[in-house]
């Protein structure tokens, strides 16, 4: 006689449940497709457009670098930083487009898109504002605004990174806990094996 508290009760009950093989196979294929989210055509085009804008922004930043060299060194450093950032974002987007899929639940897509949009904002800001600043004036205020924009743009990335590492640490801790739980299950066997060893059996 078996009761609901029996450890094998659930498995025996689940085993009785009949499943149509064809329907199950179809379901599994659909789940597989869901896990590996292929980029559809509109999404691909959207990413290509974002990447093209990113390239344009990077080109503008690079073209303006000699002009900014004559101004504040801080300003030039920011411009260089912006250029590197833009190129990184473009590389990320290119990688996603080339792979043709997004990992479900992964942060890479959101990160890349955020970074891409942010790079456009910063680059556009650089280009537009500096055009109207007289060459003999030091653009301190503009530098401050750009620093603010950069910090603001980086905040979500920093938050995501912190959360990612927090989860990784938690994951490691759980792995250790899991191994300990596994060992705890084996503990009742340990005294016997020690006795066996002492008695030489």
């Amino acid at each position, binding site marked *: 006689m078996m009761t609901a508290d029996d450890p094998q009760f659930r498995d025996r*009950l689940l085993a*009785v*449940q009949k499943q149509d093989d064809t329907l199950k196979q179809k*379901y599994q294929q659909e789940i597989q497709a869901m896990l590996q989210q292929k980029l559809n055509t509109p999404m691909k085009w959207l990413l290509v457009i974002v990447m093209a804008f990113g390239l344009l922004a990077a080109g503008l930043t690079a073209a303006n670098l000699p002009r900014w060299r004559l101004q504040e060194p801080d300003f030039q450093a920011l411009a260089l930083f912006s250029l590197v950032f833009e190129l990184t974002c473009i590389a990320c987007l290119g990688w996603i487009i080339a792979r043709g899929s997004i990992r*479900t639940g992964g942060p890479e897509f959101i990160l890349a898109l955020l970074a891409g949009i942010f790079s456009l904002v910063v680059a556009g800001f650089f280009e537009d504002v500096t055009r109207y600043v007289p060459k003999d004036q030091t653009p301190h205020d503009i530098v401050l605004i750009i620093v603010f924009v950069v910090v603001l743009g980086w905040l979500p990335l920093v938050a995501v990174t912190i959360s990612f590492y927090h989860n990784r640490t*938690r*994951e490691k801790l759980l792995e250790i806990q899991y191994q300990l*739980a596994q060992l705890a299950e084996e503990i009742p066997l340990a005294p016997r094996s020690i006795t066996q060893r002492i008695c030489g059996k």
Partner: protein
Amino acid sequence: LGINKETIYRELLVLRCRRGDRSAWKDLIDHWDRRLFYYVQRIVADEQDAWDVLQQTWLATFNAIGTIRDGRALPKWLYRTARNLALMQLRRKNSCALQDAVHEPEGAETSAHEDENGPLQFERADLLHHALDQIPLPLREVLRLHFLRDLSIEEVAGVIGIPSGTVKSRLYYAKRAIRSVLERGG
């Protein structure tokens, strides 16, 4: 250690899924598929519908995995989502079946009793499985969740949206009903 191995494993899977680990997703689905299917099929009856509901449940889980902060809350979340989707499916197909699914069975609102005849015992799982289909859906639902042993009474109450006391009384009536079906010989 206080926490059992399965609970740790489930929480670990949720964390891995949150960072987009595909093999973790596969493990998570493998771990829950059969139980969810077993539960859902008792609500929607048609197998194709049950698979559809299950697929929608996973799609909802993919989209919401970032919001599930505590991995221990996942079982309740999965069962509740599957139930809501199954009821939606039922609503689309057959409103009469839905009435049967959500209506309270006669006398189920009485207070909970101790199981007078002791724990439910059985020899053959297939007999119990078929007997389950012959009791009213609200009782069947509670008993199935109880048999699957993934949720506490409070969590079952949360999934179905009824007080814990009602879950206990439904369990009592469900066990009594199943016992009488088994005694009648299925």
